[in-house]
């Protein structure tokens, strides 16, 4: 048994960095910073590009299995070549631009969307040493980068000159305005407790274990759990995933803002959706699930980026699972859920976190009191606000005709 501070296979942990340095070592010193940056960008693009490709396949497979059918399995072994077949198909399809459309915005929208959705990856720490840019205000940067994505969706919807697309554009705007707030409010407690806006510092703040098995992840505290749930709900809405896929709303708006898109531009939208989803899930892992930290001390021998990947995939699987199960909300219900439920809960959660932070010194029996109060502060408002939210909506008892 080696001490946890110096894991035996440190080289695996550092392998990506050493590989990078080995490659840049061939270049003159003046160009090395550029090469390092480029390699980081290429690595992120490659990893998440592949993740996107196989996430689409995994989504179709899992949706299929949940729906009692095997899913795509014709292209390659277990359908493993399906993403590439889809890519070739999207590339070779005719790119139809409606005559009435605004050609510049119609073209720009998917490009802007993909570009913006990639920005967020820069500040997520994928491993102990793997973060593209160390920023003091990294969390703020992440959400600033994500804030503009719905603008691109609006551009797509408006530029298509299609009534469904226009409706989708309006929905996208309303959805963004509504869910930006709970998303931001949900991570404020984390910033408060960690005392920093830097992602690496937030992950570092969640390090360590109680008794070597209980990690100090924020999600394992009452306020952290509540924050995590609010964050994930808002993240679902931000990435336009079911049950918040209102801009796309297949059964209502045909394909929403995508109605007039075809070929590779259409694929770009999907790419952006999955990138956004991955980025938000990655941020959730960073903020609440301890980032790249291993769940217990004994498992620290596994490299940190593997833990990050495992947590990320778990959250993505959850997204797919939810998509397979839940029906879509209506626009007014969507905004009501945000303003009347998530925002108050997030604000109360801020108070819970403040309480937690102030009572950090309590020990022994007081520790129990601390947990009880915090749990009550989380569960009480949830039950009360939930009752208010679902007022007038309940299962019914039916009568039968008398004859």
């Amino acid at each position: 048994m080696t001490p946890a501070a110096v894991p035996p296979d440190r080289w695996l942990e550092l392998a990506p960095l050493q590989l990078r340095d080995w490659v840049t070592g061939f270049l003159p010193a003046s160009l090395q910073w550029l090469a390092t940056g480029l390699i980081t960008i290429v690595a992120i693009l490659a990893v998440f590009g592949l993740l996107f490709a196989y996430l689409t396949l995994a989504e179709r497979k899992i949706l299929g299995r949940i729906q009692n059918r095997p899913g795509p399995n014709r292209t390659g072994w277990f359908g493993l070549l399906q993403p590439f077949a889809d890519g070739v198909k999207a590339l070779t399809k005719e790119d139809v631009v409606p005559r009435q459309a605004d050609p510049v915005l119609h073209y720009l929208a998917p490009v802007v969307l993909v570009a913006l959705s990639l920005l967020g990856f820069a500040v997520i720490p994928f491993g102990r040493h793997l973060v593209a840019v160390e920023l003091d205000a990294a969390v703020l940067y992440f959400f600033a980068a994500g804030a503009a994505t719905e603008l691109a969706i609006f551009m797509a919807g408006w530029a298509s000159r299609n009534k469904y697309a226009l409706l989708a554009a309006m929905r996208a705007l309303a959805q963004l305005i509504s869910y930006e707030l709970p998303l931001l409010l949900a991570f404020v407690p984390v910033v408060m407790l960690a005392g920093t806006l830097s992602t690496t510092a937030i992950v570092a703040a969640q390090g360590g274990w109680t008794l070597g098995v209980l990690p100090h992840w924020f999600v394992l505290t009452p306020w952290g759990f509540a924050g995590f749930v609010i964050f994930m709900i808002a993240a679902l809405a931000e990435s336009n995933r079911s049950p918040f896929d209102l801009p796309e709303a297949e059964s209502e708006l045909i394909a929403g803002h995508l109605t007039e898109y075809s070929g590779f531009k259409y694929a770009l939208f999907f790419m952006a959706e999955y990138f956004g989803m991955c980025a938000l899930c990655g941020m959730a892992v960073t903020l609440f699930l301890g980032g790249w930290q291993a769940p217990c001390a004994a498992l620290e021998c596994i490299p940190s980026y593997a833990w990050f990947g495992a947590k990320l995939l778990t959250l993505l699987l959850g997204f797919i699972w939810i998509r397979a199960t839940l029906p879509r909300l209506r626009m007014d219900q969507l905004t009501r859920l945000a303003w009347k439920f998530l925002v108050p809960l997030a604000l109360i959660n801020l108070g819970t976190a403040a309480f937690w932070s102030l009572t950090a010194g309590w020990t022994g029996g007081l520790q129990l009191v601390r947990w009880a109060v915090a749990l009550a502060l989380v569960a009480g408002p949830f039950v009360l606000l939930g009752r208010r939210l679902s007022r007038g909506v309940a299962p019914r008892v039916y009568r039968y005709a008398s004859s």
Partner: protein
Amino acid sequence: MLGTGLLQGLAVTAKNLVGSFHDPARLPTLEYPEVQPQLPEAYRNFPFLVSESAEDPMGTLRCVACQICEKECPPQCIYIEKSKDKKPDAAGKQQIFPAVFVIDTSVCMSCQICVEVCPFESIKMDQVFAIATTERFGSLLLTREQLAKPNSYYHQIHPTEAAEVDRRLAADRQAAEDKAKAAAAAKSAAPTPPAKPATGGPAA
């Protein structure tokens, strides 16, 4: 409490996700071209004309071109032209036969009405499962030659029904023979000489 319904639903989908790996009832998909479907005996798609023998299908068609099916066919996809001459049928009786018998399968809706109204058990339902042609018009217009299939094929696809039909036909033939015999006996009892029994075709 808010959320219990959602969790219940998630539990159901999770059960189905896991079930699809071990419970065949939760993965009923047949992977078609590799796994061919088990068609039930009653399955019907497109009619065919029954001939007595596989060697000479055109000579042994049961159809006598009575045109009832042509009249009754709801989408009117059958076209029949009667022959000018006659041929002996299975029982050796001289019958008219269809000189032209065409079914437009692009119109046919496999309703089985022609089979039900046929008094001669000569048109039956086939079990065409995969229908794809390279050409829209000619390939879907089935002629007499394409439609004729031997009785053994009928036995193969609808064994129960075919056996019953054979029994019925045999009974009819028996009854006809008995009747003919009785008539012959009556004739022979009568003073006039008996007619020569028709034992073969004219100039076989």
